[in-house]
């Protein structure tokens, strides 16, 4: 560290299960380049062992440490203090919205994970399929040797659901992450079942095109683009079905 430590006022959402929430204030000397998750871990280790929060990988591959930082959805593990406040400034830490709070910063991801599972979300894909379709795949020297796979982009962190204004008004809304998963799976293997999960008023058509999901996504999933793309596919499918002979109607089922 080359510069002096900053003084930052942490204001942390605290809530024991079933009790009234309150805001805990703590002033800490921090390295401005410290990650927020490291600061939270330090608060837990040195100041208050009762603080609960979710975390695992500390480098944005697991998606556990989604929080609202000064009102904006962030992965705490890759967000530096410098990027969200200033010396002498405030750092408000809240749990994600649109998920039930279990305690403090810990939210219940259960329903969300089960919805992701229902969409058939595959966490590993061929590298080419894992890229966004509008990204150019690199030119490969030896195609046969370059069939590689990778963990896909969505880390199921829930930031998009927390940021989504539609999710805030409709508890039944399938939500951006799951719709993005449906689009991703449909692109690889189209099925009527996937369309049915998305094509209803709490699905694709609930989205208001606020694009907050894409704005906060830390992983480059671009859920909003995927929702629009899936709408296009659903509409195309409907139009085609008008001209489809009756005998082929169940073709996609």
């Amino acid at each position, binding site marked *: 560290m080359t510069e002096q430590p900053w003084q930052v006022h942490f204001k942390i959402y605290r809530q024991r299960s079933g009790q009234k929430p309150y805001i805990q204030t703590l002033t800490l000397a921090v390295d401005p380049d410290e990650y927020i998750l490291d600061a939270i871990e330090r608060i837990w280790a040195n100041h208050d062992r009762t603080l*609960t929060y979710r975390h*695992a990988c*500390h480098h944005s*591959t*697991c998606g556990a440490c989604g929080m609202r930082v000064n009102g904006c959805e962030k992965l705490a593990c890759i967000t530096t203090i410098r990027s969200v406040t200033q010396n002498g400034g405030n750092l408000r830490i809240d749990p994600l919205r649109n998920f039930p709070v279990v305690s403090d910063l810990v939210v219940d991801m259960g329903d969300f994970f089960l919805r992701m599972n229902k969409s058939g979300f595959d*966490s590993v894909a061929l590298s080419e399929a894992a890229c966004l379709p509008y990204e150019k795949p690199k030119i490969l*020297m030896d195609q046969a040797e370059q069939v590689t796979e990778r963990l896909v982009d969505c880390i199921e962190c829930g930031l998009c659901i927390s940021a989504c204004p539609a999710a805030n008004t409709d508890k039944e809304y399938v939500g951006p992450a799951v719709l993005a998963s449906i689009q991703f799976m449909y692109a690889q293997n189209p099925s009527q079942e996937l369309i049915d999960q998305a094509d209803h008023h709490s699905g694709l058509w609930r989205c208001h095109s606020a694009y907050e999901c894409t704005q906060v996504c830390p992983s480059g999933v671009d859920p909003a683009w995927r929702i629009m793309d899936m709408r296009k596919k659903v509409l195309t499918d409907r139009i085609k079905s008008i001209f489809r002979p009756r005998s082929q109607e169940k073709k996609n089922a």
Partner: protein
Amino acid sequence: MSVTQPSAIIIGAGFTGCALAYDLAQRGFAVTVVERGELASGTSGRTHGLLHSGARYCVTDAEAAVECIQENIILRRIAKQCIEYNGGYFVALDDADLAYAPVFSQGAQACGIPVEEIGVKRALGTEPALNPNILAAYQVPDAAFDPLRLAMAFAASARRYGAKFNTYHDVVGFLRDGNGNICGISAVNRHSAQPVEFQADITVNATGAWAGKVAEIAGIPVPVRPTPGVMVAYEKRVTERVINRLCEPDDGDILLPQRRMAVIGTTSFEVEDADYIPVHPDQVKEMHKRAALLVPALVNIKMRGAYMSARPLIGGMMSGRSLSRTFKCYDHRTIDGVDGLVTVTGGKATTCRVMAEKTADLVCQKLGWQRVCETAQHPLADYHLYYQSTEVAA
């Protein structure tokens, strides 16, 4: 032989705890897992994410290398959902690395690790971002995995057999029976701040780098040295394969692709307490240097994150890198005269399943429960189902 279903408490829901929960639950135990934080929120979550082929240890620690390749093959089969498998290269950067190559190649073969010298041209053809000045390249079956999801997949599998997971529960004491033996634990539910007790026939301390601290609550010494290392993640996936430097285990010798990132690691130093380990900026700088030796383009790629993870090295007279990366289970009845408690520690993420198997074997032997391990044979449950309500498998 017990007539009724035996019960076990597992302290710690890292890789070992989750894999052990699955193993014991599948063998018919009533399993209760107690974890202080989130699943995999200690060392396991913060691992580099390398599914070792074992080649990294084939010269210095053959025992660990053999364990790694055996488990590598098993995990690739049972945990596909959590692993990106593209193999890895060991590349020589200087004459010292080249001199190491024959020892490496022989060592790998002796350990049963499929290793193939592939030639510089082919290595650069398939990984164009590699340092163009490499002198030799060997291919091994390395892979990258998603740490949290691997733990969740074991936990989801355990849940299928009825295991109960109590995350955010801090262990504060051990319960003793009339003979001074351990028959359970007392804990605090951190969500509600309420105290809670769990009783079981056997308690397993699977807290890795914290095994010494947890055993200390029972007044029992366990010689574990938390030995952290730094990892640095970059914004861009620069290779498709794991890139290892062809040398003895050293700082910054492994560059791993993971999702859209590249992750370099690591260092090795000892700490007393692994609860909070600051990320040392000088070590991060050193990682930048080492990473750029393997892939020069990383000089211009933005850092995405940096983190510390504390290996649970088993103590002795040696230190750091020279400690074996294999694992140990301790039956505290034979060592300390206290029955009802077993500790498992050491090891690596890659070997978590076999650590669980050996620990479960010991537990079964102690309780006279005759069921064998089946965890190598069946694919793990979908990790999402960690969140499903407990269901007994058919």
